């Protein structure tokens, strides 16, 4: 092999950077890939120390074949991101054993940048970004090290230089970030960020929301333009579940709803069924990816104009695409409203439908209470009162229920979470012919005064009901508020305070320490920072870019944007160039020097340039020897210059020198003629 030995600094940084870049992927890698990484790094260090030599061709082939075969077996598929990232990392490390030339070092470093970027496919948060910045600095240090001589023995110096370089590139980075036209990718890789995401689902069965409430993951953040409504008003409507099979609730068949309302289309027939009253609340929601289609809004929202979002028959929003990345949308809601004042017979039928022969005891109970009630309103009140009077318990640990879950809940266990109350309440309504439906979404949320937004987490998931009343339309009834009013007023934590089950499975969750003031302060700060990051960096989508730039530069399209970007880029480059060039002649030339240098350029064109360290007299002497014909005129100029520049103190008037130069020019022109 050739004698190329990678500089020590470069190898050190390369290995460190490689480790750092691979580290975040560790949990996703197959364990043998990690073993392979360690082997390769050790082998490379041994090669550097001269104890081992590079592996032979067949060993390398063996590594590659086993690596690919192992990946196929280990992942079982080559669809998705993980197998490819795994393969990339494997090749990235194997390349270490093939570093014969400087060029190979460059390949590893470029691969390093690439692998660093793959981390963003998984996580785009601030800590992850900062970590990647560190990684990129280390890779850059390796790149610098590769171009240093072996006498550079201080790796920290190299790292410092890399940091400075990177810092210098930050302004350009910002400009490119803001201005570079954002082009949608040619193909999309199914991102893994939506894996293991929980959230409100379109099926509600006893225990499903209680399970969700174990999580402190962020669901969304809502920023209000004006004042934030009271917590008890914050019902974030997500889904309407109206089909019941005796145990779980699901959505109405989409076909029955008829067509969705899409922005920009003529209004649908059912849109008139919505009357919005009272003051409007303006807010925007930054929704975490759910890989679902439904969106959350405060009741009742006006229509939206955002592309890709439609309004469904039951007055909630629906995204046409699965939400795989953070989604920001702006809404206006009216907390007072009246919807579906008229309900057709068909819908009356649908909303009172119950499965046959299920929960017979509850059915009987409903009829008994109805018989004892004056009217529908009284009946509803009686039911809610009985939840309260019969000492129902609001608990995060409801007992498991059998097939006739509502019977068991209402008459036996009497312990349940919001889905039990919502489900049983709708059942009891339907049992006596009152149209009712379950609504799931979130309720409440934590107000962050630093960022002025409401932060809604998974444990804020909630289920409530809507009951249709003649002349009033759908009205919201939350049976949970009858059992545990504190859930609605101040959130889950206080509602389950007595049984101490709030986030019992997450002992280290920030949320558990809300009583500690300074921790809360820090948490709110971090959350606010993270929110700004999500809104302005991660959420800087093509449409946001266009609207932002439109705001400052007026209407523009992609072409304009590209031109502007290029202009900015080159003007930046120009400024840098001027700065660099300007440094060389930081002192302004005296007029007389300028004249003389112009004269020197004249001679340079004749092939007689003055060298930098050559004084005027020596120059004149040399020219005199090389071109005796020029000597007399040359001497006149030189004498004038020397006299003015050295015998006097650089007078402002340069006339005599200029005259001499003009004479010289005339002379040369005539001599050159033949």
């Amino acid at each position, binding site marked *: 092999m050739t004698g190329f030995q990678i500089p020590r600094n470069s190898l050190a940084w390369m290995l460190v950077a490689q480790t750092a870049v691979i580290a975040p992927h560790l949990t996703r890698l197959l364990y043998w890939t990690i073993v392979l990484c360690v082997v390769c790094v050790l082998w490379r260090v041994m090669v550097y120390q001269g104890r081992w030599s590079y592996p032979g061709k067949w060993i390398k082939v063996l590594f590659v074949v086993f690596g690919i075969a192992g990946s196929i077996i280990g992942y079982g598929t080559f669809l998705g991101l993980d197998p490819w990232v795994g393969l990339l990392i494997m090749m990235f490390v194997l390349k270490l054993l093939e570093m014969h030339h400087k060029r190979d070092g460059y390949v590893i470093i470029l691969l390093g940048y690439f692998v660093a970027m793959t981390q963003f496919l998984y996580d785009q948060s601030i800590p992850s970004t900062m970590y990647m910045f560190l990684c990129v600095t280390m890779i850059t240090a390796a790149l610098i090290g590769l171009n240093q001589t072996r006498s550079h023995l201080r790796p920290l110096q190299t790292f410092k230089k890399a940091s400075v370089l990177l810092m210098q590139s930050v302004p350009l980075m910002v400009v490119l970030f803001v201005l570079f036209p954002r082009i949608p990718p040619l193909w999309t890789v199914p991102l893994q960020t939506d894996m293991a995401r929980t959230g409100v689902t379109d099926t509600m069965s006893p225990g499903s929301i209680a399970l969700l409430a174990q999580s402190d993951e962020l669901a969304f953040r809502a920023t209000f333009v004006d004042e934030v409504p009271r917590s008890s008003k914050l019902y974030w409507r997500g889904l309407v579940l109206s089909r019941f099979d005796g145990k779980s609730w699901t959505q109405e068949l989409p076909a029955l709803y008829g067509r969705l309302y899409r922005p920009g289309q003529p209004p649908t027939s059912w849109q008139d069924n919505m009357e919005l009253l009272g003051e409007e609340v303006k807010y925007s929601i930054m929704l975490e990816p759910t890989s679902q289609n439904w969106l959350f809004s405060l009741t009742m929202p006006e229509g939206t104009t955002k592309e890709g979002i439609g309004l469904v028959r039951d007055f909630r929003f629906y995204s046409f695409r699965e939400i795989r990345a953070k989604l920001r949308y702006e809404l206006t809601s009216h907390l007072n409203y009246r919807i579906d004042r008229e309900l057709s017979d068909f819908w009356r039928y649908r909303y009172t439908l119950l499965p046959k022969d299920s929960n017979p005891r509850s059915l009987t109970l409903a009829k008994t209470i109805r018989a004892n009630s004056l009217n529908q309103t009284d009946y509803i009140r009686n039911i809610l009162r009985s939840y309260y009077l019969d000492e129902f318990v609001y608990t995060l640990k409801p007992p498991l229920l059998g097939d006739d879950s509502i019977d068991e809940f209402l008459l036996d266990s009497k312990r349940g979470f919001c889905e039990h109350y919502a489900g049983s309440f709708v059942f009891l309504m339907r049992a006596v012919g009152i149209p009712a439906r379950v609504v799931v979404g979130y309720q409440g949320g934590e107000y962050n005064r630093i960022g002025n937004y409401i932060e809604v987490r998974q444990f804020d998931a909630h289920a409530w009901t809507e009951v249709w009343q003649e002349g009033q339309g759908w009205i919201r009834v939350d049976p949970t508020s009858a059992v545990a009013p504190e859930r609605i007023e101040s959130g889950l934590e206080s509602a389950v305070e007595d049984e101490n089950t709030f986030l019992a499975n997450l002992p280290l969750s920030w949320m558990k320490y809300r009583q500690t003031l300074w921790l809360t302060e820090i948490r709110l700060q971090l959350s606010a920072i993270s929110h700004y990051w999500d809104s302005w960096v991660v959420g800087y989508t093509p449409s946001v870019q266009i609207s932002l730039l439109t705001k400052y530069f007026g209407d523009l399209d992609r072409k304009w944007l590209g031109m502007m970007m290029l202009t900015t880029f080159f003007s930046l480059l120009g400024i840098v160039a001027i700065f660099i060039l300007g440094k060389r002649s930081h*002192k302004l030339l005296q007029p007389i020097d300028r004249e003389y240098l112009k004269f020197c350029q004249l001679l340079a064109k004749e092939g007689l340039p003055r060298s*930098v360290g050559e*004084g005027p007299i020596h120059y004149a002497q040399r020219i005199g020897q090389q071109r005796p014909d020029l000597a007399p005129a040359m001497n006149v100029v030189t004498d004038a210059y020397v006299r003015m520049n050295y015998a006097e103190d650089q007078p402002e008037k340069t006339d005599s020198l200029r005259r001499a130069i003009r004479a010289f020019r005339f002379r040369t022109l005539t001599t050159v003629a033949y």
Partner: protein
Amino acid sequence: MPGAIEETIAHIGSVLLGKEHQIKLALTCLLSRGHLLIEDLPGMGKTTMSHALAKVLNLSYNRIQFTSDLLPADILGVSVYDKDSGKFNFHAGPIFSQLVLADEINRTTPKSQSALLEAMEERQVTIEGQTRPLPAPFFVIATQNPNTQAGTFPLPESQLDRFLMRIELGYPDAVAERILLKGEDRRIVLGRLEPTMNVRQLQEFQEEAEQVKVSEALLDYIQRLVQHSRQAPEFAYGLSPRGALALLGCARSWAFIENRSHVVPEDVQAVLPSVVEHRLREAADFSGHGGTALAQRMLIKVDVIG
């Protein structure tokens, strides 16, 4: 060239053949009231040159041969007890003369070297509590063998700095050498040399040299040179302000010898190697050499104009 100076150079040149440039440098040093260090191999005419200088300039002349057992008293002088008068009489050492040749200065111990160098700096000698001024003009020409030769105590940088100039004589060219080989014994020629000026004239010349005009543009150039030595990576350290002053003073004297009323960059360039070489060290060279190359680089890289 003022007539007397021209004559002086011609006279010395008749003894030291083909070395006009070095003679001019030595005179420059003298006119700038500085001391001269001549560094060369034995037998290159170091002693001849200093002797000739003393003769033509009509200066009192003493030669001290520096050896490893030379003591400071051998240079400065000693008080001896006179039995007749019952007093101590001071017997002045060889340093009490207008031109002192300190031959092979790097062959003696640092102690004796210091005695000479102190006298050079202060132009007076303090012996047994009594300060005695040295004659004016006072001019030391020290010679030394290149440091790498055996049996030498190289002068440290701080002491080298006391010498305004350091020159090398170098081998004579073929023509000069032929004349030397064919001609008379140099010692006889030396004995025939006639003075070309007296001490007063010399002092007048020194004063005149100080009056030579230095323009802003020229100061700019000197500052650029000094700045370069302080910034360029190949220099272990830059020129001191004393070095810059030395450069300016020598350039003035050189311009005076060239019979110019003002200094031009070529004057600076002519004296620059002799003035700065022994004050510089290359960053990559720890043995103390490399000043020659550095001086050349300064001349090439620093722009004369601008």
